[in-house]
């Protein structure tokens, strides 16, 4: 299968068509930034952009991504060794990262939220991120990170 991932055309061989996009990213394309934590769309850890829309990659069949543009958390900084992007910097500054396992999905979800709504209210943030479970932070610092990123202060 061929698709564009983080701006680069990629091909994965031997893909079984029942695989999920998450599996293709993690196991076939060497991009384990997107996390596998429930495989049922219940936690948001695998959130990626598919043609510009934030989706749970665990519920996307591999075939659905053929010919499409996929952006993962790895693509939100300038490159594998590049500096973190603005949302990523905000998460660092606010202390919104603890174990870091929900973080990649959250970063994509926040990037998506702010691209559609640059100055969300707190209730809008809370609802927009309801699909991203975090077990460590209690969410307060994540709220702070989103406010920081929205204010362009990170």
């Amino acid at each position, binding site marked *: 299968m061929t698709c564009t991932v983080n701006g680069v055309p990629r091909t994965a061989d031997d893909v*079984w068509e029942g695989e999920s996009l998450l599996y293709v990213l993690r196991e076939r394309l060497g991009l384990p930034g997107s996390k596998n934590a429930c495989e049922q769309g*219940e936690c948001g850890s695998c959130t990626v952009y598919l043609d510009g829309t934030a989706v749970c990659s665990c519920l996307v069949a591999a075939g659905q991504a053929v010919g499409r543009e996929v952006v993962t958390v790895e693509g939100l900084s300038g490159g594998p060794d590049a500096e973190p992007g603005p949302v990523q910097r905000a998460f660092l500054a606010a202390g919104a990262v603890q*174990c870091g*396992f*929900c973080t990649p999905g959250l970063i994509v979800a926040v990037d998506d939220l702010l691209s559609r709504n640059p100055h969300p209210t707190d209730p809008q943030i809370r609802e927009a991120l309801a699909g991203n479970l975090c077990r460590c*932070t*209690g969410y*307060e610092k994540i709220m702070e990170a989103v406010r920081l990123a929205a204010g362009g202060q990170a």
Partner: protein
Amino acid sequence: MTTAIGRPIDRVDGPAKVTGAGRYSADVPLPGLVHAVVVGSRIPAGRIISIDTRAAEQANGVLAVLTHLNLPKGGSVPPLVPSLAGAAATGQTFFPMQDEVIHYAGQHVAVVVAETLEQAEHAATLLRIDYAAAPFVTTVEQGREQAYEARRIFGGFLPGRVERGDVDAGLAEAAVTVDLGYRYAANHHNPIECSATTAVWQGDRLTVYDATQGPNATLHTLAELLNVMPSHIRVVTDFVGGSFGCKAMIWDHPALAALAARHVGRPVRLALSREQMFSSVGHREQQEQQLTLGADAQGRLTAVRHHKLSPTSHFDDWAEPSLGVASQLYACPNYQGVYRLIRANTMTPTFTRCPGEASGMFALETALDELAERLGLDPLEIRLRNYAETTPGDGTPWSSKKLRECYRRGAELAGWDRRDPRVGALRDGDTLLGWGMATSAYPCYQPGNPQRARARLYADGSAVVQASISDIGTGSATAMTQVAADGLGVQLERVRFQYGDSDLPNTAAAVGSAGAGMVSAAVHVATTALRDQLIAQALADPGSPLHGADPRQVTVAEGRMALRERPDVGETYAALLQRAFMADAEAVGTWNPPPDTSGGSMTFGAQFAQVAVDPDLGLVRVRRLIGVFDAGRILNRKTAHSQLMGGMIWGMSHALLEGTRMGPDGRWANASLGEYLVPVNADAPEVVVETVESTDTVVNPLGVKGVGEVGMVGTAAAIANAIHHATGKRLHRLPITIEDLL
């Protein structure tokens, strides 16, 4: 000299986590890697009559199907000892797939190894397993009649019965008593990362990438289970996606991964599915508690009788120590605590964040509110009247205790004195508002073995400091970097803390809120030893400006040694080493922990909660949580406050959401994140956290008392007390859900 400790610096492992570069145990790329899946028993008791593996073995990509019939035999199962002891730490004294007997649902009965995960999962569906089911007990309700008093619990570390004074006499003399029964659902940890192990053999040497709270615990457990020399095993844990206790003990999957890898001659990854996380890594047991309090007319406790009843496995006498802190928190001369257990067809329960305190203190702190109500006392006042100036057991002084300051500050932040204390008096439209409070305390446990770290300073003045501990998201790597910088007297930016590897100097597992204290002690000892060694070298070096000086007069800052009174006299570490043609200097530090301090040393806190209750629809929403904690010294304000906040949300979740329900078939019925509810962002209230620093010279060199659990301890009781303030209802079970309030 302290410059780095306490500062709210950003997490050192943060950049790798926000960019997706961090490699967790299921992310490690290895050439030739294949995948294993475990298969769990569908029945809770009985035996396997037959397993037909032919279809699975012939499926595409399948390399092996392991069952009790062909699993390579290894070593023996070590005793159940908490991983804080620093030795082998099996989660239960049972290793699966040794025979056909089934002890609990989900018990691992087969491992399927295939080229891809999808192939392994598919092949697992092709197994035909026939069982002969036997009668079983999985709940308190089913096993009440067969309950027995435990001789010891908690891996043998705690007695099953604790008494002081005469509790019957204390109750007889009481002016007021309350006698209350409490019921608690079981809980599962559900860190976002499911447990995973990647195992690779090179000849007779094994490297394991394991999601664990203690790389050394994994190492020693594997050494015994596999009968492999510890010297031939290395456990690497670069990143752990949360644990909350389910990775504190070592379950069977790392050993199964290693056995499978040896069997197929390829590196094997074994990742548990979310559903399997409910039957493979322990749980907080379902339980009942009966609590009787007696008090005199002034509200001073005359007796506390606290009994607990809970199911454990067929292998181990495990109960979380629900009665511990509750027995020691208040000045009361007469106390009796008894643990009763039920042999059940579940796996052995295990540590779950705030193990014991969360449930026991829910009982004590809500019962105290009822007592206060009976006596017409303010809830805060009754706690102050029972304030334990010294430990209630033997009257020895606390190692440090600023609980009174926590009460005062918490009450101030909550506006406690200004609230209308009458039930149902506070309203916001049709919504009833309520305030509640509770005390928090969590013991300072000590590791069972010496804690070690190594410090190496290079000739350019940069330093690497090492210890085996893993960082499960607490921020310990960041805090240890700060401790190392201060110990050496160098800038933070010049220090790298290396961790998460059993080849590094030995530490116990980071559990029980003890990690920061014990590892900071080792890092402190190692880095100050290296500092002193370099100062000694300078004093002995005729080429040094410090030659012949009094070592007590030398201080170090920013990598430069100088006389305290004459800062212009001195030189940098770098100058010293370069002059001596030394590429580096190194020291190992060992910290020998004091004997058990958990009775006289605790992290304390005062917690306040405001809830809003929709009385018609039975909906409770927490609006505000306030916590003020005395956690000794705070190593990093940002990470410590995050830990406390996270703990408070765990408490809220314990109060209102979390419960694993056992079905009549003896299996957990809601084993998914869709059915086992944890809070989402929209549930999170405003959370205020403050710390009151105390100086503690007993627990460890830096006086760190720990922040991992204490945030959770009082939260559920504060919420339940607030619900009472709002509605007048006293609720004695967790979680509290809509049907309790209709």
